[in-house]
């Protein structure tokens, strides 16, 4: 038998095998792909994967952005060595956390200990499926998308408390209690401030709210609502000056004291995901979303992906405001926090709702122009 024959025999064998196997997989797949629902489903899956990648990437870049900004606020540079200007530092940190062993305290409750951070991260990620980023990046018409986003956003205290309780550590428990108290106290003014926006826009749909801001953005007429929203969002995101649940000076690391490795990374990611969600919500509700003011030249939004670009610019600027606040203000006390939340924020939020109602009644503001009729 010559070598050529040998070669052809093996070639034939492998070719036949490949053909058979390929038919085995490809045949049913091709038949399934004629089904329109399946194609839609695969499209949704692809979109979800894209969304996951984009939100994770944004989160990690957001941490880098915060570190760089904070560095300049403190007269230093922040991360500098890994990647260009330290851009890859957080990827390296994430990789390190990913490789680390996860330890669980012996007395900790196993189910709650693992369920808490996972659910916290998953619910934070779920919000991104709802938020419209531009006309193209949009999960479709959803009349109550704002409510849904806020509902998912307010799951967090539960999971934080579950993980804090199951850690079986007094610092974790104190942090969890503080977190729950704080989030519940600030949930009310947050939602009332949203009500003011909804009253003016006449819709719970985030897309509609953005399109209602064609004439003017809502931050001007609803400045009281914006201030309440920003303060309440700071408390919800547990950022300085409202980072009492993880006050390093008193509670070691707050409710994530016992967590290390990837579970800690879950908390970290989810915290910054929520910060991103908060910034995105402020942009959507008060800063006109992906639109630009009409007096700017239209060529700024004429190119593809311009909506996403301007949206991200606004989001990062809003997050820069949070970093600015973090760099400036000291942490408040728990009683101050709760007193401000219940005694000051809620009356202010009610005032903002009243102002919004007045705005809808009057319809026209001297500087900003006229409101479109509600529900139009």
């Amino acid at each position, binding site marked *: 038998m010559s070598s050529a024959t040998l070669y052809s025999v093996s070639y034939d064998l492998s070719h036949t095998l490949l053909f058979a196997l390929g038919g085995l997989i490809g045949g049913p797949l091709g038949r399934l792909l004629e089904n329109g629902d399946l194609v839609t489903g695969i499209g949704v899956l692809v979109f979800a994967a894209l969304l996951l990648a984009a939100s994770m990437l944004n989160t990690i870049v957001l941490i880098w952005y915060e570190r760089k*900004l904070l*560095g*300049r*606020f*403190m*007269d*230093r*540079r922040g991360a*500098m060595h890994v990647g260009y200007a330290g851009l890859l530092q957080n990827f390296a940190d994430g990789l390190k956390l990913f490789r680390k062993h996860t330890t669980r305290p012996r007395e900790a409750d196993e189910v709650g200990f693992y369920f808490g951070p996972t659910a916290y991260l998953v619910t934070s990620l779920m919000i991104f499926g709802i938020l419209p980023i531009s006309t193209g990046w949009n999960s479709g018409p959803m009349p109550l998308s704002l409510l849904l986003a806020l509902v998912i956003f307010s799951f967090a205290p539960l999971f934080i408390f579950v993980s804090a309780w199951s850690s079986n550590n007094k610092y974790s428990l104190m942090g969890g209690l503080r977190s729950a108290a704080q989030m519940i106290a600030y949930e009310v003014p947050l939602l009332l401030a949203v009500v003011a926006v909804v009253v003016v826009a006449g819709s719970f749909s985030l897309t509609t709210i953005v399109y209602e801001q064609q004439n003017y953005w809502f931050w001007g007429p609803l400045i*009281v609502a914006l*201030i309440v929203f920003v*303060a309440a969002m*700071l408390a919800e995101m547990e950022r300085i*000056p*409202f980072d009492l649940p993880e006050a390093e000076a008193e509670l070691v690391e707050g409710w994530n004291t016992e967590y290390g490795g990837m579970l800690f990374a879950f908390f970290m990611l989810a915290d910054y995901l929520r910060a991103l969600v908060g910034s995105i919500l402020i942009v959507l509700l008060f800063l006109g979303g992906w639109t630009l003011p009409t007096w700017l030249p239209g060529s700024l939004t004429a190119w593809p992906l311009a909506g996403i670009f301007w949206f991200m610019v606004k989001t990062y600027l809003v997050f820069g405001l949070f970093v*600015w*606040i973090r*760099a*400036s*203000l*000291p942490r*408040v006390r728990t009683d101050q926090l709760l007193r*401000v939340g219940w005694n*000051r*924020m809620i*009356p*202010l939020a009610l005032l903002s709702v009243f102002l919004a109602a007045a705005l809808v009644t009057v319809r026209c503001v001297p500087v900003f122009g006229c409101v479109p009729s509600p529900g139009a």
Partner: protein
Amino acid sequence: MTEEGAPGAGTTTEENPVLYVARPMATAARQFVKSLVRPSTIVYPYERLEDPRFRTEVAVASGRPIGVGQVWDNYRGVHALNIATCISCNLCAFSCPDLCIEMVTVPGPDPKKPKKCPQIDYGKCSYCGFCSDACPEGCLTMTTRYELSTPRRAEMVYSPQRLFDVFRSKLPMNPIRLERPENEDRILLDPPLCIGCNACARDCPTQCITMVDVPKTDPKPGQKPAKRIWKEPVVNDSDCVRCGTCISVCPKECLFWGGPP
């Protein structure tokens, strides 16, 4: 955080919630703008404070820039050892408060008489500079080199040869002070105890001890003076570096420290 709520009647920052938020934020914004162009920090491995371009930028409180010839020369970094001028007097090891200096044998010019030179363990060294102050010949000084990190502990120990390599790299060094105090102690001899064994003169690092012939005096009454010539050490005080080697090698403990003449 009540920016709008209940504007306080008071004017202090504590009472007015708007000022409570606005003042720190204005301060932070000013700092941000100021450090946006160039923060105060330098990117260390890529930039160094001893670079000439930082000498004018980074000024110390007195207004004088940090640079070679100014403050920087007094930096106490890794030692430089000139093996050629080392006289193995042991004073550096004697003065070291951390016991990090060990005198080790190095091949000297005379193969029969190897030299002992300091070997420094930088894992223990506290960079106090006593050794270079004590060095009578000015052969052990400190340089401005400060990067000594190494992955192995054994590499923290600098042999005399490595210290000599540092010396040959011509780094900026601490000024060498060789002036000696006027009222220094001297080596004194208790003559009746001396047996003239020559040990002190043999081991003196500076060869400042010479054995001179001394007739054995004060014979017992009625006895003839001794025929044998006795030798006694005589110390040349200007050459003596006060290392005390002679005292430690004397078998009869007849040498001792004495006050100024």
